[in-house]
């Protein structure tokens, strides 16, 4: 529940940043973590990986960024509202692909019917790829929003 209600005005906690070592190593690692996340995402259909794993890796990148530079900085890159839109875009892509398949004359989620690639098999591959991107987006957004909610929680007396 909390994960979705991130737009509520919450008390801003004091900005905590890591040490110089933490910040320096994070600034090197974060881009590579994100890149690796994208790699896992794209190779989900053929190799090991997929939307779920990629989403978690991408979210881990942002969480490391928060640990090093503080919540304020991360929220500049990934505002709460954007996270929410991303979280709901994922399922929309998934269902949208299903409905697109109907529009192109197949059954629901019949990727083979989509006009992608040269053969139905290739169309299936790309169709699943697009769905994986949707899954990755949602998983990442939900992980980040859970993290935001915990980080922004008011102190419990």
């Amino acid at each position: 529940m909390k994960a979705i209600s991130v737009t509520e005005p919450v008390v801003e906690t004091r900005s905590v940043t890591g040490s110089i070592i933490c910040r320096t190593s994070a600034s090197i690692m974060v881009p590579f973590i994100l890149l690796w996340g994208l790699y896992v995402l794209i190779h989900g259909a053929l190799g090991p990986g997929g939307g779920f794993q990629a989403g978690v890796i991408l979210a881990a990148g942002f969480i490391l960024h928060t640990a090093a530079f503080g919540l304020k900085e991360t929220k500049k890159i990934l505002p709460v509202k954007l996270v929410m839109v991303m979280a709901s875009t994922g399922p929309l892509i998934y269902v949208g692909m299903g409905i697109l398949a109907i529009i192109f004359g197949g059954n629901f989620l019949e990727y083979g019917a989509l006009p992608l690639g040269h053969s139905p098999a290739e169309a299936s591959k790309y169709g699943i790829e697009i769905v994986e991107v949707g899954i990755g987006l949602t998983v990442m957004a939900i992980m980040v929003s859970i993290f935001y909610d915990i980080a922004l929680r008011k102190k419990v007396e």
Partner: protein
Amino acid sequence: MITDHLSVLIIAVGLLGAFFTPIIGLIRKEMCSLWASFIILLQFLISIFLLYQVIIAGNISYWLGGWEPPWGIEYAVDLLNAFVLVIVAGICFSVSIYGRKSLGFEVPDKELPLYTLYILLTTGMLGIVVTGDIFNLYVFLEIGSLAAYALIAMGGRHSLTASFNYMIMGTVSASFILLGIGYLYVMTGTLNMADISALLPSLYGRPVILVAIALLVVGLSIKTALFPLHTWLPDAYTHAPSAVSAVLSGTFTKVGIYALIRVMFTVISPSYVIETVPVMSILSWVAAIGILAGSLLAIAQYDIKRMLAYSSVSQIGYIFLGIGMANKLAMTGGILHILSHSLMKVGLFMVAGAIIYRTGIRNIYQLKGMGKKMPYTMAAFVIGALSMIGIPPTIGFASKFYLAWGALGAGEWVFVVVILLSSLLTAVYFWRIFENAFFGVHEDIKKDEAPISMLLPILAFAVITVLLGLLASLPIGIIEQWVTGVLP
């Protein structure tokens, strides 16, 4: 043609609508409830069209992704599915109109998560009903349940505990259901309902099947709040926002009952659960105890929503009684009671919500003069209560009549006595409200009726309760046709 895809579109529209809600909410918060009503109206229209299609052209089978059934997921719609679909979608739609004011009052400033979850709950329930794949059924059951836990938790302070209790019970029940499905899968190697029922007969001697049936029955009984397993229900319904209690009482438990009927009579053959293993007669005796216990507990309550919740426990017993007796008449009565109890209980919960909206009163003994203050709302309450007691010409009378008739036909005199006794007990606990609301007030009380968007659904339910009571042959015809096809 788009009409070939309706059985999956009813789910796809819901999912699209649900996940579009936060985006709409970010632009304009007030639009969320309208959007939810619009999406659920679409689902309602699709469900009506599906029922029409099934009546005209016979059963519908839809292959997701174009994969043939034993391998792929199949959406199979027959008369029972379509009938329950219309009930669920119709009730969710009317309550979403009612909820605009009621939820706005009881759960202020939470439109985004609220309506997303509301559409997800509706979609989850419709998914349980529409699917022909037993694992898909479990997935939708979880979608619906998770949405229900969160919706209940929005009711304020006490609702958190209630929701947590429900979550524990619900998770236990979901584990039982999953284990039961797992055993069936291990034995047959398939998850398609029709395929399982074709493969099962050769395996009926095996103890694993017995374990699977036991797990499924107990799991679904917790979800439907059959008497000794009902403990989560009163707290959840009392503390949830009124509109949410209305939807849950009217549809969620009914969908669980639908799942039980589907598993027992379609997946596992009726002759096995009636004759070889007496699952059905055990269920009917438990239900008979539940009917009386629920009514007695309802008499002891003074909170109006809590009383209605215990009354739900008793009324769910009626449905189980009808299914448990498993003869054609009683079964028809039981399934008809799904419809009638949904109509009456949703109406009554909406009235309770309207009273809370206007006055904040929940205690029955403080309702003095409510008949003058909110005359139309209370009139609808009286009609719902009369239907609950089983007075003609309401739909409640029709279903109870069939139940009693079926019990007489089966020679189960105890059940006839239970039905009559419980009707009297129902009259007792509703009479307390009548007495307080309508009698013993002489001073002038200013009329202060509920707002029109709340009053309309309430009155609509009252009218439909009576109308369907007069035209009871319509639903009975559909149900009898299905029952005749299933029972030997």
